[in-house]
């Protein structure tokens, strides 16, 4: 399973890595730290020519260069990318952000729990549901 984490905070990147490691060792977690790089990864451009097509995307809303809302809009407007479950993982609990994310076809909206054990639980739940229980479409790059 290839998971793309789009997150600019190194602390959160590391926490998420730790949480996935604790949940399931078979996950391949790829990390990009801004929206432009995220689009390059998804389109296998520049340094990401060999990037795999992710099975699942975790997206932060507040990102440098191109913010998460724009990234989400582009993924969902792209016929080749829009079937990838894209889940928002952010600190924002603002109603506006929640509504606009779902309007942009986010598959789920999660806010980062403040307490570490809760965060660990959340990542475990994501792994259990989206990466274990849910049936995801199988894709091939050349389709």
């Amino acid at each position, binding site marked *: 399973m290839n998971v793309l984490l789009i997150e600019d*905070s190194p*602390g959160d990147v590391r*926490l998420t890595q*730790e949480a996935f490691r604790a949940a399931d060792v078979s996950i391949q977690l790829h990390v990009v730290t801004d929206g432009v790089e995220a689009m390059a990864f998804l389109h296998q451009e520049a340094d990401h020519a060999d990037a795999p097509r992710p099975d699942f995307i975790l997206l932060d809303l507040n990102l440098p260069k191109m913010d998460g809302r724009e990234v989400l809009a582009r993924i969902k407007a792209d016929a080749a990318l829009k079937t990838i479950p894209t889940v928002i993982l952010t*600190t924002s609990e603002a109603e506006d952000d929640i509504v606009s994310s779902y309007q942009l076809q986010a598959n789920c909206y999660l806010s980062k729990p*403040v*307490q*570490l*054990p809760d965060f660990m639980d959340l990542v475990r739940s994501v792994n259990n549901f989206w990466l274990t229980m849910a049936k995801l479409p199988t894709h091939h790059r050349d389709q």
Partner: protein
Amino acid sequence: MTRAAQVKLAEETQMRAAEARGQELSEALSRMEDRYRGLLEAAPDGMVVVNQGGEIILVNAQAERQFGYHRDELIGRQVKAIIPEGFAERLVADGLRSAVDALAQQIGTGIELVALRKDGTEFPIEMMLSPLDSADGVLVTAAIRDISTRRRAEEHLVQMESRYRGLLEAAPDGMVVVNQGGEIILVNAQAERQFGYHRDELIGRQVKAIIPEGFAERLVADGLRSTLEAVTQQIGTGIELVGLRKDDSEFPIEIMLSPLDSPEGVLVTAAVRDISTRKTAEADLLTHLADLKRSNEELDQFASIASHDLQEPLRMVASYTQLLASRYQGKLDADADEFIAFAVDGANRMQRLIQDLLAYSRVGTKGRVLAAISSEATLQQAVNNLDKVIEESGATVTNDPLPAVLADDTQLVQLFQNLVGNAVKYRSSEPPRIHISATRDGPRWMFAVKDNGIGIEAEYFEKIFGMFQRLHGRDEFAGTGIGLAICKKIVERHGGEITVDSQPGHGSTFRFPLTATDAHPAATRGVMP
């Protein structure tokens, strides 16, 4: 015939002729007099004819009545007997003018004099003189009118006017009386001061000169209403307009109109009040209110942004100290374990503090419109949220049937949650028993959250609702000291006040009011300031 006889005959003939002429003359005179008397008696006024010597030679019935004499008593008497002064003197010709000239000057002008009745009483008269040429010289006919009634009316009017003027001048407001043409006909001293004019400059001028707009227009009757109605509609309602001083400066005024019926038609009295001070005060108040509102909003926004932005780095500190603790507890030395424990505790406390601050600021910034909700369902939700602590503490939460109220759903959940949560937290050695009830109090329901906890000393009843106010050490009871401040803010936002009644060792009862849904909203608003 003798010469003498001839002369005598001639004389006799002459005499007879003379007698016959005299007879004819006297008959003519008598006819004249009858006609004249008829005119005299028909006159509405008393008529007195006087000769140059001031002697009364003719009176009519009206004059008899006026003076209380029979005409026989008057004929031949001096006119001074009934009009002591001002009449006889006017009959006298002096060196410069003939009697006719003297009289001619008086013709057509009413002369006001005092008349004397037979019984010695006086009464005011108005007299008109006219000369009448006769064989005995110029006679004077005086038409005499009793003006007692008119005089009394005039005196009354003068008295009324001075009283009215007194009232006018005593009025605290500027008073401007205007006629139908919009012309100023009366002002008082206050109005002079307000507008900077002397009253002579204002009388006769158009009211538009001092109140350019909104006044003159109100005087105009239209097809649907009379002026009286038009003005009546304005009565009692202060109309705010702009006044214009002589120096062209403007000032805000409030005018109250009242109609005044007068012989010249409906006059309008305007009480003019200078409301500059009030206007300035109002404007100041509005500015201060806007400032206060902005400053409150800024504060709420600051609290919200600050706590949100503080939360991010803090989450890192807390998460990594927790990660450190979970991964290295017992693997380093005892000191390291203790240090990590302090770091974890500090980070956790700070997180709670920030969350509570955020919750506090959200009461103001995220408040929703009050709607009719079931307070019982809301309590149930709060109790569900507290499931874990209630179970751990072995608490029993009971309630009477609770009413529908006007409230912000989310905030009421938080209010119940904080109060029930506190009741569980500040429990005594006994298992906590918490009971929620509501009693009707006019348009509101008074809610009571009663517990059997440790209670509170009376001196802290006020203090506990303040920000960061804590009565216990951290090792006794954890907490940020914001919970009850949030409760207070929520209740205040619902238009009420939260109070506590307690005795140490005997539990506490927190009370707060909420508006009943069946209290008519308009009626409820009506009684509130």
